[in-house]
């Protein structure tokens, strides 16, 4: 399967990455080659095979619901690029 530039642009938007035109050209060539290599997988018949969604036989891991301390507000905010009061601050979303 191949990947055209429009698809890459769309995917980059989904991934929230602004691509420069030269990056788009370069990526398009590289992804074409990588996907060509990955297409090897279509040679295998996997109709009867179960997907390995987890490699260990463990499921539904639960713990006791006990209250405990988590990060303090100050610590949680100390790496924020921008903050106001007790909140992370971002550019305006709603006018």
């Amino acid at each position, binding site marked *: *399967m191949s*990947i055209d530039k429009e*698809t*890459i642009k769309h*995917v*980059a*938007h*989904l*991934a*929230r*990455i*602004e*691509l*420069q035109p030269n*990056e788009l050209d370069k*990526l398009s060539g*590289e*992804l074409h*080659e*990588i996907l060509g*290599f*990955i*297409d*090897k*997988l*279509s040679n*295998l018949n*996997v109709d009867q*095979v*179960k*997907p*390995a*969604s*987890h*490699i*260990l036989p*463990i499921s539904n*891991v639960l*713990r006791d619901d006990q209250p405990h301390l988590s*990060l303090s507000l100050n*610590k*949680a905010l*100390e*790496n*924020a*690029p*921008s903050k106001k009061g007790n909140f*992370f601050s*971002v*550019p*305006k*979303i709603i006018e």
Partner: protein
Amino acid sequence: MELNQLTAHELLEKLKSQESSSQAILKSLYTRMQKIEPQVKAYARSQAVESPALNFKATGDLRGLPITIKDNICTEGLPTECCSKILEGFRPPYDATVINKLKENGGAIFPLKANMDEFAFGSSTENSYFGPTHNPWNLNCVPGGSSGGSAAAVASDEAIWALGSDTGGSIRQPASFCGVVGLKPTYGRVSRFGLIAFASSLDQIGPLTKDVQDAAILTGLISGYDPRDSTSVNLPVPDYTQSLTGDIQKLKIGIPKEYFIDGMDPEVKTIIQEAVNKLKNLGAVINPVSLPHTEYAVPVYYIIATAEASSNLARFDGVQYGFRAKADTLIQMYKLTRAQGFGQEAKRRIILGTFALSHGYYDAYYLRALKVRTLIKQDFDKVFSNFDCIVAPTSPTSAFKIGERAQDPLKMYLSDIYTISVNLAGIPAISIPCGFTKAGLPVGLQIMAKAFNEEILFRVAHTFEQNTDWHKLKPKL
């Protein structure tokens, strides 16, 4: 010998008898770094400015023995930047579980972090925001990756021992390229809490050390169940040093025929064959085995690992930590932050992974890859029903030149052809030094065992090591 040249277990003896001190060992590391770090650049912010180690429990068994940590493992208050611009200046507000365990045991966390490929995306440590690390055996070569800083630091005696992380070979391949010991534990053996996630179904933290005994000690210290990592497994942790018996009589070792392929360096092949003969002479029973789906491991990996990475790295959006680009709207802030904050390889993988998970392609790529992952795991199950372990090369070549594969992502991905299956199957594997090429570059021998059978790895690796001298050789710097 200087203190920094000794193994951890040798230094532990000296600390116990009070013949040496934590301070003296730290001093010897800084002295070494001042001399060679400008060439090797094993550390993320390559500088040999002396600062004290992080606080540790004074009564712990490690008695202040320093340990070097890869830049993607959270250390409270100490920069942990994944060697990425997007995490520049990030000081985690908490310690990873492995760091907690080391501190509780008296380990002194070295105050500089080991260099790595950005977010562990790479096999050469060339993708670091802080610039590449150089191989101590030949400064024109890469140290391997992504834990190249940890491996180079240990190999050049700029670290006593180190922690790395391994998603597709990121501990074993640099261990092989730098001539040190590196172990990827069984998935679930070591808590991933505080390891900045790349591919959560594949990532494991593990040791890079000067010999097998150190690897056994360190693995024991970091292993065990952690309620904060729901994929960690609640099984008792054995005393791995008890496995260092020196006896591999009648042990059944399989040699996978699919690992001796075209594209493998003939010199590496000869060295591996000699190592296998050595194991035979030491009493092991050697037979060929087959892992028929080996050729699909790299394509499966580059779907699953990138898909998981695209999801894990969504959190780097300029809101809570790290770098933020200036923009007027929220969406544009996300897009520019990620465009300017991530390097080329990170963008490539995020976009590939997003594509593999996107509407219309999910079944053809991601779901199919999960199914082939099952087949790869079944290959190993079948072999381990008759064999104690599998022995193979760690990498098809010795260390390559800096820049040689940087412009060819696919060729770089194929560097991991022998290490990736192990992560996909969730099993443990170790790489140990087993020889040198004529050009003087180390070659690693990889030993794999079934899940939670690290003991066999230590037993075989230690027996081989004690009957060879490869681990005693040091690079001339």
